């Protein structure tokens, strides 16, 4: 599988927000460059507050 060079984007299944590591998440004070897997456990969706387990890989 050459899916490994994907974007690393993750989508919130509750609201559709997409976490993009290259952008980070200013609403949660997450600076650009942090991979989804490296986000702290207490991180939640900046739009709807869904927890990390409610995120799906995009590709």
């Amino acid at each position, binding site marked *: *599988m050459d*899916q490994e060079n*994907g974007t690393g984007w993750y*989508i*919130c*299944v*509750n*609201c*559709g*927000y*997409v976490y993009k590591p290259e952008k980070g*998440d200013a*609403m*949660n*004070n997450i600076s650009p460059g942090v991979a989804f897997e490296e986000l*702290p*456990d*207490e*991180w*939640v*969706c*900046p*739009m*709807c*507050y869904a*927890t990390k387990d*409610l995120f*799906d*890989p995009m*590709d």
Partner: protein
Amino acid sequence: MKPSVSSLYRAVELQQEIPPLLIGERANTNGSKKFRELLLADDYDACLKVALEQETKGAHVIDLCTAYAGRDELKDLTTLVRMCAQSLKCPVMIDSTTPDCIEACLKIYPGRAIINSVNLEDGGKTLKRVCQAAKKYGAAVVALTIGEKGMAMTADEKLNIAKGIYQIAVNQCGLRPHDLLFDCLTFTVGSGDEKLEDAAIQTLEGIRLVKKELPGCLTVLGLSNISFGLPPKARRILNSVFLHEAVQAGLDAAIVDAAKILPLAKISDDDREVCRDLLFDRRNGQEQKPLMRFIEYFQDIGEETEQKDSEGNKTTEEQMFAKVVEGDKDGLEDLLFILMERFKPIAIINQILVPAMRHVGELFGRGEILLPFVLQSAEVMKLSVKALEPHMDKNEAGSTTSILLATVQGDVHDIGKNLVDIILSNNGYEVHNIGINVPTEMIIEKARELNVDAIGLSGLLVKSAIVMQDSMSQYRNAGINVPILLGGAALTPRFVAENCVPHHSEPVVYCPDAFAGLKAVRELEEGTLTATTFNSGRVPEQMKPGVKDSTVLRNNPVPKPPFLGKKYVEHVDPEKFLSLVNTQALFRGRWGYRRGKMTANEYQELITGTVEPLYEKIVRESLEKNLICPKITYGYFPCYAEGETLYVEADGQQYPFAFPRQSEAPHRCITDYFKTKEEGGDIAGFFVVTIGEKMSEETAMLYAADAYHDYLMLHGFSVEATDALAEYWHGVMRNEMGISGDETGDIAAAVRQGYQGSRYGFGYPACPDLDVHQPLFAFLQPERLGISLTENMQMVPEQTTSAIVVHHPQAKYFAV
């Protein structure tokens, strides 16, 4: 004159010169998936076509069966009988066990039909009624050899029941012997069940006895059961040979797929012999049983099969298990029919169905199957249990764990609770679902009355979490000493552990989804259920996202709305906002089509192959059935902020809106985005939008009909469609206020709030309290659109949403 039946166009002799009379079986909801789906799609024309096709393939009579849980059989069957009466040259066979339905069809059918069927199960009550109708309208009747003790297995039993039916039908109701077609019942010789090894012999002997002992009476057989469980190709040959043997024994008519009957001449001698060995259980001195020889013999031709035949080597139990796991309803009744020969219904439930559902739960837990498929499995479970129930003693199922379910007072959200109901009840538990908006007192009363083993409380709203918390001591004080399971979007393990657990005498358990509820009930049974705990040291508290900047600009311009006051909009073309449906949230979130362990390609295939077509179908059907009736009340109002209160002026009156403030930095409150009186005041937009109550009615109907999968799909769609309408209208209002700038208007941008301003939905994180609905309803007056408030400020119909529209450029979502 020879015994005949007739349509408007022709008479057909029941005893064909070259027997048997072929009765086409495909226009049957229980026997044909295709026909069932057409009927479920209300496509009567296509259903008629199924009937017509059989005519061209050689059927003499067409069987029509529309019985299906949740459908109006009377309407479906009379509609189709009427259509067939016009278009079919063949007479019809009215296939129903409901006397009202049979009578209604006889009344409108312009020829002489056959009724399928009656039996002696209830001692003759229904039989008598149907025979009287047959006499009155002139119809032939199929009579199954089923007595009060069940289905007749031996030839003698078959004859005895036939005699009993004859006594009532002929001697009491005045039918003529040749008005009766006895069906001596066929059981499979393909299951490997030793008790059924002579099933074909008994059936054939039954036919012989009926013809001999009840002269003038006719016989009929549902043929294909004989080969149930065998590969399709071999079935076709075995069915054809069996038909030939049955005709030799005196069979007059057969219910068959006319297209699939092979003339005996086309079957080789060797093939015939292997079939006959199986049918007549001929060992020929060989060690191997005839069934094994049959399977081996036909192994090679099994390859070019028309349908999946993985069922070939499975036992009936395994097939049943697979039906549940795969959510496949096809041929379910046949399978249960066969299983009931060997097992008591309760054993089928406890030893096959429940373990199958448990397996489904495990697969879901491991992320190997998705929620929509779980619901399809639950539908198979429910259908099976429904089919088995009439054969069970009342007290047989009484010893199971029972759970009371309710959505708490002030909350009208149904879906979460209903999913728990579906999962628990289809795992064999006794569930008492007492509805939505139920006061604690009522729950206590019901829990006492029903003597339940646990209570499950549900609620979506933030306020519902508070209601749950406050009710815990009430349960304790009332002496309700059973565990309480809590579920709902606003709950967290921490909240349950710290605010609910301490106030009840028994374990209080947080259940994030329906399967967690199932797990809790199992633990309760095993005696291992414990209250939810929360270790604040180990799991840090969730982040509170939001703009961290604590200064809100004060010098932003106040837009000029095109009007002040409220307006109603009662017609919006759904096409305008359906493009804004958040399909990602719908597919993955509400519908549960998450990627899970699938590869990107597999997931893409699921989305394009299954989910998107389903979405298009639901949109199309919703539009066709006018389920989406958008109505809006909205307006712009002068206002000013003072602390946490926004004073809104409408119709010459002042309405205070009290909003909460964040308890931690940056201590945001919605009022911060509005100018004070001293700053010159401001403008606030408000709206209430609904897609109407038809959607609620439709989803309630699906749930009541145990159409779990369709229920979840349509409900999820309705919620997202409502939000799309809100999103659309928010756009209209930004436009009217002249703050829309160069928005892209696509849904991805909407998710990110890629526009100026924000809409804060009431009941959502920035304003969880619904009490602001009171002033809002006072001046937007949505009652005129059929929208009302519950005593706890929730809007009805469910597919309604409200918001304050804030124009301030810094306004973004936050949570208090």
